[in-house]
């Protein structure tokens, strides 16, 4: 029992945790609900990652391979955890494929769910073909051609709207999703690389490209790729008679209403709590914080603990998180999980 760790979720957090636990010589059971490993970057088809600039399928692909090639890791795809019994050092878990397993610790890398733009109908997603989300735009970049979905024309203008599903009390999203500013400035550069005649406008309330992302993404996008930043919260996206989209709002710096024609409007969608978090909380017997992300236990001496002993949680399950930090969380949780098992063994001896 105390030589095996259950890792739930095979995104950047879970893959990192699994590799970490295996590298200390313990066994890992890795459970992933989807049929492929890699998490959001793979399933949603991200293009180049921030900040490495590597294609998601290459970078995350290496993480997947490292885990798949490790004999200490047993992988269950298209599988969920349905029951957790016991306590730290001696959990019995039941999987949806009917198998049961004895594990000492549990690591949750259960991630997030992209905000569904349909919940902001005034911004035209689902109504107009040329209104896309950042994930769809990333897929377009991955496919290598920038074109309006409605009729295939090369867009003269692309507008990226920030804070779609973030910082919005109207729809109960009171958090900043942390990474969309950086992703959007990066996306603007990718669009410009593929389609140099396209002008990219980013409509913002604030630009929060934290840490080193400031100059590597925000400044670079503005200075080298001539992305235009417009301080306006868009009120509505409509369509004009000629088929172009119209973004309507108030430019708060000019202090005047704007109705500007655009060819593609991209929603920089935020990170919601994993939509299955209520079930996850029930199965694992852990708490959720007020927004619906998984709640933390004591952090200063019991880092990455959930509210239940022996179950650790990290990455974007805790709240909006970037990939690099999620990977660090995974490795830190491996340390915590194995450390706790060792302590129990020593105590028993």
């Amino acid at each position, binding site marked *: 029992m105390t030589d095996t760790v259950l890792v739930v979720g095979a995104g950047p957090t879970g893959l990192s945790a699994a590799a970490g636990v295996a590298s200390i010589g313990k066994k890992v059971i890795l459970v992933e609900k989807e049929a492929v490993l890699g998490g959001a970057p793979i399933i949603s088809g991200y293009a180049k990652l921030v900040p490495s600039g590597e294609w998601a399928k290459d970078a995350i692909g290496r993480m997947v391979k490292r885990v798949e090639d490790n004999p200490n890791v047993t992988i269950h795809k298209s599988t969920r955890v349905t029951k957790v019994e016991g306590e730290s050092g001696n959990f019995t878990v039941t999987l949806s494929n009917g198998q049961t397993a004895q594990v000492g610790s549990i690591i949750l890398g259960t991630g997030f769910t992209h905000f569904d733009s349909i919940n902001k109908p005034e911004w035209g997603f689902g109504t107009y073909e040329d209104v896309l989300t950042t994930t769809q735009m990333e897929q377009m970049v991955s496919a290598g051609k920038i074109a309006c979905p409605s009729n295939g024309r090369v867009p*003269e*203008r692309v507008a990226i709207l920030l804070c779609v599903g973030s910082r919005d009390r109207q729809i109960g999203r009171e958090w900043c999703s942390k990474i969309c500013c950086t992703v959007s400035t990066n996306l603007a550069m990718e669009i410009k690389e593929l389609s140099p005649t396209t*002008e990219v406008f980013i409509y913002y309330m604030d*630009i929060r490209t934290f840490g080193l992302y400031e100059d590597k993404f*925000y*400044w670079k996008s*503005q*200075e080298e790729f*001539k992305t*235009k*930043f*417009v*301080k306006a919260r868009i009120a509505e996206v409509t369509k004009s008679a000629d088929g172009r989209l119209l973004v309507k709002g108030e*430019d708060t*710096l*000019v*202090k*005047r*209403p*704007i*109705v*500007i*024609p655009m060819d593609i409007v991209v929603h920089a969608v935020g990170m919601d709590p994993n939509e299955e978090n209520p079930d996850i909380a029930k199965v694992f017997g852990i708490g959720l914080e007020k927004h619906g992300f998984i709640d933390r236990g004591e952090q200063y001496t019991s880092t990455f603990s959930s509210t239940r002993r022996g179950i650790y949680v990290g990455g974007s399950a805790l709240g909006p998180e970037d990939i690099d930090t999620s990977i660090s969380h995974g490795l830190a949780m491996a340390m915590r999980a194995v450390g706790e098992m060792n302590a129990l063994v020593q105590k028993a001896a």
Partner: protein
Amino acid sequence: MAIHEKTLIDPDRLITSDSLVVDGVDVSGHWNTMILPRTLRDYDDGFEDHLKQYSGAENVHRCWQCGSCTNSCTMYAQNTDFNPRYWIYLTRLGLTEEILKDKEIIWQCVSCNKCTNICPKDVRPEGVMKALAHWIEAEGHGAKSNSTVFDEEFARQCLVRGRIEDSEVMSNFYKLSQQDIKEMALHGWLGIFVARMNKWNELRHGHVFRFLARTPIMHSLHMGWSMIFKPKTKSWGRTGEVLSQYVKEQKELAHG
């Protein structure tokens, strides 16, 4: 008038009439004030690059609207409508109509360069002000400044004859800048200036030599002579023509 947010309303969008009848209904009084919509309907995507052809605006695209330039601005302290941050933003988006609303004050930048020193993104706002002022003038968006009128007349004469003729420069400058010489002589500074040259008092008191020494007789004669026989640099020949051609080519190179 029942309008409070005056700052949001440009006078040219405000329509009032003393008496107004709409569809047979007399709406004179409070209800005859109409305001045209102030919605901005498009950007001029090429304007930022266009302005960069004027020296000084090369870094305008770096601006992130922190407002340090306006905060530090000497002219803003005098007139809060003088707002470099705002004009840089308008430049980036190509909202040229909005820029031109301020064409009468943009040129007032005194080039103290406090903005350039404080700018965290190295936009060099002072250069942008210069470029905007040049753009407004060069592309005929505003009246030429007096100093430009003077420079042009000065340069014109240099090109024609290789040198200037003082009285012609001045009289043409006043004419082109629509300053009334007669008015200036009768009631303005020109009359006072000439009156001060009056040394008849010296002569009346018998100071003949002092009178001759202090009255610009020879200068006036020389001026009069030059007005008729305009001085020309020796062997000037086609030099002016060649110079004009060169200046024209350089301008085309700079501004396309």
